[in-house]
C-alpha cells in the first residue's frame, strides 16, 4: 500500500489498528485517514472501541498491530524484551504527541496549577517556547475560549464546562496538527454542554483537523465533515456526515442514532433523526 506517495499527506492515517485487553478484542482492524481541515466524528456504542482508537493513535494505549502515520511520519514500533509491542523510539513518541492535541472526557487539568499555568506548561517545558511568548499566546487562547477572567484560578474552582474549555486551550497551545477529542462533553451537566460545543464549533470553522468521539448527533451533523460508526471494534459505516447520519444503512447504526443504544428507546419514541440540530 503506497498512499504516502500522494501529493498531499494525510494529517493522520491509521491503518488496520488492532487492540485487545486480555481476551477482549476492542479494536479489530480499524483504518481511517484524516486530511487537513477534516473534522471526523467517531460514533459508536459504549464498548465499541472509540476511546481506545484515540488512545492508540497517540499511544496512551499501545496497539497490538497496525500503523499510525502523523503528517506522513510513521510511528515506529518494536518489541521489548518480554516480547510486548512497544514504541521503538520513545523520543519519537514524545515528539509525535506534541503534534497531536488530546482533549479528555474528564478534562485532566493539572490540579496544582492555575488555568494559565496549565496552558503555558507544555509549550515552555516541552517545546521551549520563551515564557513571554507562551503567556501572550495563552492569553489569546483564553480569550478565545472565554476564560480570560479565570486565568489565575485553580481548576477546582471552575465548572466542568470551564474546565473543559481550559483543557481545549491547553491542547491548542501546542499548536497541534490534529486535535483528538475524547467525548469532550460526556462528563458535563447538560446545561454546560453548549458552551464547550460552541468552542469546538469555532475550531472547526477555523479549519482545524479534528477527530471527535461524540454522542452528540446533532453536533456531529452540524460540525463534522465525515462520520465513522464503530461497531464491535470495526468501522461499520462511514461517509459524509449528513449522508451517513441522515440515511444510516445498517440497522445497528439506525438504532444507535435513534437512541436505542442508550436504553432511551424504552422511554421515548425512537425517531429517525434522534436529536435536534444544534443551534
Amino acid at each position, binding site marked *: 500500500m503506497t498512499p504516502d506517495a500522494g501529493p498531499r499527506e494525510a494529517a493522520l492515517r491509521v491503518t488496520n489498528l488492532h487492540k485487545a485487553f486480555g481476551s477482549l478484542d476492542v479494536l479489530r482492524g480499524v483504518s481511517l485517514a484524516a486530511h487537513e481541515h477534516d473534522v471526523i466524528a467517531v460514533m459508536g456504542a459504549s464498548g465499541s472501541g472509540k476511546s481506545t482508537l484515540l488512545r492508540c493513535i497517540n499511544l*496512551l494505549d499501545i496497539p497490538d498491530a497496525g500503523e499510525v502515520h502523523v503528517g506522513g511520519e510513521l510511528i515506529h514500533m518494536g518489541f521489548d524484551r518480554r516480547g510486548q509491542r512497544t514504541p521503538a523510539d520513545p523520543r519519537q513518541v514524545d515528539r509525535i504527541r506534541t503534534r497531536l492535541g488530546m482533549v479528555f472526557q474528564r478534562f485532566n487539568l493539572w490540579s496544582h496549577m492555575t488555568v494559565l499555568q496549565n496552558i503555558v*506548561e507544555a509549550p515552555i517545558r516541552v*517545546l521551549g517556547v520563551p515564557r513571554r511568548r507562551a503567556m501572550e499566546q495563552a492569553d489569546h487562547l483564553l480569550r478565545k475560549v472565554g476564560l480570560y477572567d479565570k486565568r489565575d484560578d485553580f481548576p477546582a*474552582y471552575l465548572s466542568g464546562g470551564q474546565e473543559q474549555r481550559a483543557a481545549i486551550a491547553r491542547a491548542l497551545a501546542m499548536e497541534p496538527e490534529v486535535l483528538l477529542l475524547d467525548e469532550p462533553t460526556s462528563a458535563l*451537566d447538560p446545561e454546560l454542554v453548549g458552551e464547550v460545543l460552541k468552542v469546538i464549533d469555532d475550531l472547526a470553522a477555523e479549519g482545524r483537523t479534528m477527530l471527535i468521539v461524540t454522542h452528540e448527533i446533532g453536533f456531529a451533523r452540524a460540525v463534522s465533515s465525515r462520520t465513522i460508526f464503530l461497531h464491535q471494534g470495526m468501522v461499520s459505516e462511514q461517509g459524509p456526515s449528513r449522508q451517513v447520519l441522515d440515511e444510516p444503512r445498517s440497522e445497528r447504526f439506525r438504532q444507535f442514532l435513534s437512541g436505542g443504544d442508550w436504553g432511551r428507546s424504552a422511554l421515548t419514541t425512537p425517531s429517525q433523526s434522534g436529536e435536534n440540530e444544534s443551534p
Partner: protein
Amino acid sequence: MDLAIVWESLPRLLEGAVLTLEITFVSLLAGLCLAVPVAIARLSHRRILWMPAYGYMLYFRGTPLLVQLFLVYYGSGQFQPLLDQAGVWFLFREAYFCAVLTLTLNTAAYTAEILRGAIIAVPRGEIEAARSVGMSGLLLYRRIILPKAFRLALPAYTNEAVFLLQATSLVSIITLLDLTGVARIIVARSFEPYKLYIAAGLIYLVITYTFVLVSRRLELRLSGHRREQPVGGVGSASGR
C-alpha cells in the same frame, strides 16, 4: 516543689535542644533528597532498580533504629582498614556523623514509602494529560508527578518528621549531648530524674507542636488548588 535545678540546667538543656534540632533537620533534608530517587526506583518496572530500593526499604523499616545506630557506630570499627583506604574513616570515628548517617538512611526509607504511596495516588488522568503533550521521564516527574505527590504526602511526612525528632533521643546512647543526652548527664549528677526528664519532655513537646503548626500552615498554602479550603470569598460557578 523546688524547681531551682531545672532553671539552673535550662541553658544546658537548650544547648542540647539545639543539637537535637540540628541533627533532625540535617537528617530530614538529606533523607528527603535520598527518598525521592529511592521511591522512583521502587516504582520502576526494571528489576535492577526496584529490587535494591525494595531491599533497602525493607531493612531500614524492618529493623530497630537503635540496632541500626549500633551497627553503624560500633560496626564500622570492624571495617576500619577498608574505610581508611576509602579515606572516610575519620567520618565514622565521629558519633555525630554516625548518628546523622543512620537517621538519614532510616528516615529516607520511611519517606520513600510515603512518597511511593503518594506517587501512586497521583490521578492517572493528569499523568496521561502530561504524556499527551509530550512530557516523559524526569520532566514528567519534576513538573507533574512529584509536585502533586508532595502535596499528597505532606500530612504523612509531618508525622515522619515528628517521629524522627523524637527518635533523635537515641543518639544520646552513642555519647552525643543532645537534649536527652544533656538531661541524662544532669540526672546522673543530681539524682533528680523526675524534674529533668519532665523539663526535657516539655521542650520536645514545644518543638513537636511547632513542627505541626508549620506543616499545617504549609499545607494550607499549598492547597490553594483544593476546593475544600476556604479561600477568601472565591465564588465558583460550579455546575457539579
